């Protein structure tokens, strides 16, 4: 039988009681163990064959600072080239034209399919294939003069990046609802204008996290350009230790700089994400 309006008896009053704090023994023990391991590693490094004074001296050496500047210049320019190519190739891939489609697919296949360091070496040694380059009758130059370490690194890194970025961009464009494209067409926009004004800005929101990832990889990938004499951070650090034999100290210097740069990039990415989150509810609140 159900009484008309009284609540059933036999359920204790819980008001005024709090959730108790549990001791979390396992967390304490595991944290202690990890600290112990870290201390052992730190001790090993402190007593090892490392002259820390060299690290601090070379951390701000002119050649190292020039190296980090060159690294950043190359990372930014190559990334810009990569994003430009990535957007173009992604649009080609999504176009109805079968020729454009297969050219785009071929580009991605070729440059993702071979090691980056090999591509850098090929660009740098282009002179072996084409001693002179130019436009017939208009302009020509010796390839060795044109293909400087800077240009070879830019082309190698940027074109390789474009192959990866195109896939990121394609995913971003596919993530935009087809209705957006139709609405753009309905107000008279052509394919390219709809992409530029409507689809790409919305795709940006999706592609910024993976592109941030790619840029961080790019900063570190510039170190591969040391093999073609581009004076970036690692290359300059190597030049110093060839002279003074402080190999580990200079590698630590370079490593610290890479860490610093990457640490600064992460909050920058968050700023960008917020910029492109315009119009989403999360920001509207």
């Amino acid at each position: 039988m159900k009484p008309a309006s009284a609540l059933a008896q036999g359920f204790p009053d819980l008001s005024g009681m709090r959730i108790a704090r549990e001791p979390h023994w396992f967390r304490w023990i595991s944290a202690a163990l990890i600290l112990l391991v870290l201390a052992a590693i730190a001790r090993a490094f402190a007593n090892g064959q490392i002259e820390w004074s060299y690290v601090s001296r070379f951390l701000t050496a002119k050649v190292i600072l020039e190296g980090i500047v060159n690294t950043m210049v190359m990372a930014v320019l190559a990334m810009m080239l990569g994003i430009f190519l990535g957007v173009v190739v992604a649009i080609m891939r999504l176009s109805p034209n079968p020729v454009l489609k297969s050219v785009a697919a071929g580009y991605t296949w070729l440059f993702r399919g071979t090691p980056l360091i090999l591509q850098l070496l090929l660009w740098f040694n282009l002179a072996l294939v084409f001693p002179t380059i130019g436009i017939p009758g208009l302009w020509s130059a010796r390839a060795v003069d044109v293909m400087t370490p800077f240009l070879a690194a830019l082309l190698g890194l940027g074109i390789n990046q474009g192959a990866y970025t195109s896939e990121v961009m394609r995913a971003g464009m596919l993530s935009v609802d087809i209705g957006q494209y139709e609405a753009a067409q309905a107000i008279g926009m052509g394919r390219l204008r709809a992409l530029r004004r409507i689809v790409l800005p919305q795709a940006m929101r999706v592609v910024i996290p993976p592109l941030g990832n790619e840029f961080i990889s790019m900063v570190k990938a510039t170190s591969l350009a040391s093999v073609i004499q581009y004076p970036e951070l690692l290359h300059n650090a190597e030049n110093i230790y060839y002279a003074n034999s402080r190999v580990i100290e200079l590698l630590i210097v370079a490593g610290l700089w890479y860490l610093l740069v990457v640490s600064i990039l992460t909050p920058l990415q968050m700023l960008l994400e917020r910029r492109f989150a315009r119009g989403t509810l999360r920001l509207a609140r």
Partner: protein
Amino acid sequence: MTKPLVAIRSVAKNFGEFQALNNVSLDVWSGEVMCLIGASGSGKTTLLRCINQLATIDAGGIWLDGELLGVREHGGKLHRLSEREIGRQRLKTGMVFQRFNLFPHKTALENITEGPTQVQGRKADEVRTEALELLRRVGLAAKADSYPAQLSGGQQQRVAIARALAMKPMLMLFDEPTSALDPELVGEVLAVMKELARSGMTMMVVTHELGFAREVADRVVYMDQGAIVEEGRASDVLGAPREERTKAFLSAVI
């Protein structure tokens, strides 16, 4: 003799083996409000999409304002128009989608000004003034700077109507403009459409709102399986249908 604004002649549209439109012929006269009704899958959306060329027809022809859509006749053959020319033809029609399709990264005002400034290349301040006037007309003057995500469904659909009107189309196409809305929001969108109808706009409206059709439509078209089954004055088709299929449909939905 005057000509209809839209003349649809023997139009067919296939999706693979499936015939979505089958020998459809229809006239829409300037200033007329036409409602298209019919069961799900009967081809109503497809017909609207063919008129503003979001879909290409497989046979027959559609003339808008005396101009053949999508193709040009030359030497006994039909040649597809360029994307640019199709874009120009699309400016004569405005489309309102079932799911609004507002641009989420643009404010209500920017959604409306996008077409006139970017596509028609008109001056920004003049377009802005007109857009604010349109927002006022659909009752959303206070929401100019809101993003779509900050608007209710009914408000979003009214912005979408304003966006289509901003292009100054001669024909407005509505594809179930209220069927994605909560019942209490349907009225505000229908009110805007009624006002638009009174202002003399030519409208083709796919709808399940038979009350709206009865009140506003000059003509009602009943479609089934990709074909027009019955067509006539709203009071006749809805009140005294001739065809058995129309009768069955109407008694099922009421």
